[in-house]
């Protein structure tokens, strides 16, 4: 009897991790989305452009490069779902939401650096996969968002240091 349990242990552990991952992962994702949405509405008046030109009527007083990045990982349950999806094909929703969360979070962090800026121009996004070993799986990703924050007018704000990144 003990031997059977001992033999089954790795299997039980794997199932346990998947269930735990599913329960906690879903809760954390919901919480993260709520936080992203509230913060995004707070920044609604600060436009972000991915073009390089400023609006013609605006004169820039100060510019600064701003960066935001996040490393995010998928939970075990979604990894299993994604694995199953590769059998049937189609959109892998598990990964879609993961990348979406990471991108939006990275942009929000970039905006936190651009406090009081009137506009952010030339937004660039970069995604890198950090998982090693498991070649076929996309486990951990890093998203970096960067751009140039511009303050209009003649009075440059003094509350922020001239920091590089």
């Amino acid at each position, binding site marked *: 009897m003990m031997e059977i349990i001992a033999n089954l242990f790795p299997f039980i552990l794997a199932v346990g*991790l998947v269930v735990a991952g599913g329960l906690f992962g879903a809760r954390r994702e919901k919480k993260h989305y709520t936080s992203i949405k509230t913060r995004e509405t707070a920044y609604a008046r600060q436009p972000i452009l991915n073009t390089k030109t400023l609006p013609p009527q605006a004169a820039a007083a100060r510019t600064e490069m701003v960066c935001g990045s996040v490393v995010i990982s*998928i939970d075990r349950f979604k990894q299993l779902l994604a694995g199953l999806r590769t059998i049937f094909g189609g959109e892998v929703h598990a990964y879609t939401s993961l990348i979406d969360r990471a991108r939006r979070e990275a942009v929000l962090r970039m905006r936190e650096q651009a406090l009081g800026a009137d506009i952010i121009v030339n937004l660039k996004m970069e995604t*890198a996969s950090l998982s090693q070993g498991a070649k076929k799986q996309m486990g951990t990703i890093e998203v970096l968002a960067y751009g140039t924050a511009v303050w209009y007018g003649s009075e440059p704000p003094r509350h922020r240091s001239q920091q590089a990144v």
Partner: protein
Amino acid sequence: MIMTNLETVPGKEITAHYGLVQGSTIRAKHVGRDIMAGIKNVFGGELTGYTELLKESRDEATRRMQEQAHELGANAIVNVRFSTSSVAQGAAEILCYGTAVRVQ
């Protein structure tokens, strides 16, 4: 040192070009962080340790790029780009490059 990822510095005029400057660094995570990340991998979500690690590396790469620009006598770097690649197991390379210029 003014940095921007635009091709010019808004409101200023470029008076001299000094060419390409770059900075890079390759960092590996230490074991403790790796184990913590392994545990977090089960539940998903942000891996704060890695976020910080990559941010530190990016700051370091930027610093090296700025040093290079400073040596050339530039006071601004335009058209800055970042690039990340995973070169070896558990290590990531961060590259940062741009054009050193003098603005007025």
